[in-house]
């Protein structure tokens, strides 16, 4: 366990702290700006992973009606499982596709969070602790202690405005990542997530330094932008409709890229035929079979 922690520190945490301080030095010694730039850069670097995750999630949601049909049709669990796996194969969907990229991103996000927390120590002891994570490069060493105020806000302590912004941006990210589902149970789950996530993260923000909240807010805003690119955005109330800008190769189109008010329409929309780049209704594996 100590070795894992040591690898995490040497390979991820220490480089991230160094990077944050370099950004701080470049951005007018403003640690707030450094956090914003850092979050955006990290999100851009991990963009391929994020897109894979979003596409996988969308593809999974697209075939949900057919999975439901299978569930209704087959009572034998083993047969049901086989049919569902067959559906996944046909759609070219890896059921773990949405989990894998998320798992890969988790250590990066955790290190980022730790880096912000360490660099913005709330107590003199934190600066002492930071010394153990700084490279012996004078460019970094001379920058500490870092400026702990940003836009009149103490980045070391919790701030109510940041708590509210964390809740709002988390809600926005959750809402923009939900697509239409036909199953009532799933719909209820999505709705609960849309309200629970902001509450949970607002609780976090209540006890965390504002610098960490700032990271989370920027992270969520970037997440919303990615979601809009992948899922599109439809807000009937203000007649706003943005189609997905990034259409994944090899996955079926979403039923209706919205979970915001037109779920009834989604429920009666016929399931489109699944198409992949491998040909109408065929997966890579099926093509290989045909060729052999």
């Amino acid at each position: 366990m100590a070795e894992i922690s040591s690898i995490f520190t040497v390979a991820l945490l220490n480089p991230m702290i160094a990077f944050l301080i370099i950004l701080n030095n470049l951005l007018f010694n403003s640690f707030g700006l450094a956090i914003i730039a850092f979050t955006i850069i990290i999100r851009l670097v991990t963009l391929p992973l994020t897109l894979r995750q979003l596409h996988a999630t969308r593809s999974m949601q697209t075939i949900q009606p057919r999975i439901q049909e299978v569930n209704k049709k087959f009572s034998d669990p083993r047969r049901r499982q086989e049919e569902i796996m067959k559906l996944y194969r046909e759609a070219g969907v890896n059921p773990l596709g949405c989990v894998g990229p998320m798992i890969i991103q988790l250590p990066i996000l955790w290190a980022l969070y730790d880096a912000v927390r360490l660099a913005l120590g709330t107590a003199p002891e934190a600066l002492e602790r930071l010394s153990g994570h700084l490279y012996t490069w004078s460019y970094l060493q001379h920058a500490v202690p870092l400026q702990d105020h940003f836009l009149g806000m103490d980045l070391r302590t919790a701030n109510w405005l940041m708590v509210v912004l964390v809740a709002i941006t988390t809600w926005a990210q959750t809402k923009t990542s939900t697509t239409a589902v036909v199953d009532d149970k799933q719909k209820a789950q999505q709705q609960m997530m849309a309200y629970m996530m902001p509450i949970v993260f607002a609780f976090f923000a209540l006890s965390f330094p504002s610098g960490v909240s700032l990271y989370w807010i920027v992270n969520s805003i970037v997440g919303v932008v990615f979601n809009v690119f992948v899922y599109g955005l439809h807000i009937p109330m203000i007649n706003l409709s943005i189609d997905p800008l990034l259409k994944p190769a090899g996955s079926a189109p979403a039923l209706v890229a919205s979970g915001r008010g037109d779920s009834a329409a989604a429920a009666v929309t016929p399931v489109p035929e699944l198409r992949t780049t491998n040909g109408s209704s065929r997966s890579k594996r099926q093509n290989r079979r045909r060729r052999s």
Partner: protein
Amino acid sequence: MKRRRRLAILPALIALVFLATACVGTVNPEGWAAPVFDGNNIYFLQSHNRLAQAAIPTDGKTNLDWVFPDKNNAAEKDDKLQAVYGAPTIADGVVYLTSYSGGVYALDQATGKPKWHVKSGLISGNVVGGAGVGDGVVAFGTTDGHLYVVNASDGEPAANWQSPVHLSDGVWADPIVHNGTLYVGTMGGNLYAYSVKNGPNNPLWGEPFHTEGGGAIADLAMLDDTHLFVPSINKHVYVVDISNASAFKTQVDFTASDWVWTKPAFKDNVMYFGDFAGDIYAVDITAGPKGKMIWPAPVTSDGNRVKSGPAIADNMLIVADRKPTVRFIDLKTGKQLNAVPISGAGTVRADLVTHDNVVYVVTTSGKLYIAHPDNRSVTEVQVGGRQ
């Protein structure tokens, strides 16, 4: 039924959040104030937020006379120090105490009751350094770069110091009042000198002393009557000659292996200190502009950070590292004669203090130890009385 189950998830999630918060919470201020001796008494932080007066231990035992704030005294229930980093200063029957977020106090030395209190609401930022006391004033700085100078008698702003001075960087080191001059080091690497009498408008030096690259000055101490010890987290230790009040002279610029954030021990023109790489040095300040190590090589504390200032007793240098281990080092040769680990008492960040030829060590959990140079042992002081 389903709805009920969903609702049950809410408190479970909230509980999970609280648990997670506890796991990854931020570092809380613990303080590292060194003990102080006056007359027959010792003053030390019995916990990170409580100052105690006790008789100087005999036979390894002592009893507390008073504690501040006293949790049994209703009048002191609102006095929340949070943590104390600067050693208390005692002058004319008054104990001056700075606290991280509870303001600055002048306590009656006999009773431990406050005579005056500069409340935290009147102070911008947190106070990490101790108080500089002298010439009828008390000076203290804050983490957001404000320097306050108040009357030692009543805590009101001193003459010509009506408003706090806003320096460009935080003040973590103890300000020093010496021969009518106030010396203040900042985390931006500047060292300023002001006339206590004339106030901040005409600093005594045309330009402040500046560390290389602006390395933070997190500690500051007088070596003797004319030399200031200026350590920096840029790995340099400077000795600044202040014999001429209107101009400083950098006498020594010594380079250590890592950050130096401690006070020194000083004897026969040699300063002794440790750094964050765990190296312990003995540098002759009269042997040229870079100083000269009098030992063949630095003594190592096996890589453990040295945050607390060492102390000298009986021709022995006694150093405590962060592990914590107390080391006994021959002053002349630099040979380590013994190393005694302390277990179950937190760590040592407070400077060690010599009194009556033994050295006192305070740990972060408020335990008091005595290092004996004669038999190179460490014993815990049993503290009785009110807790």
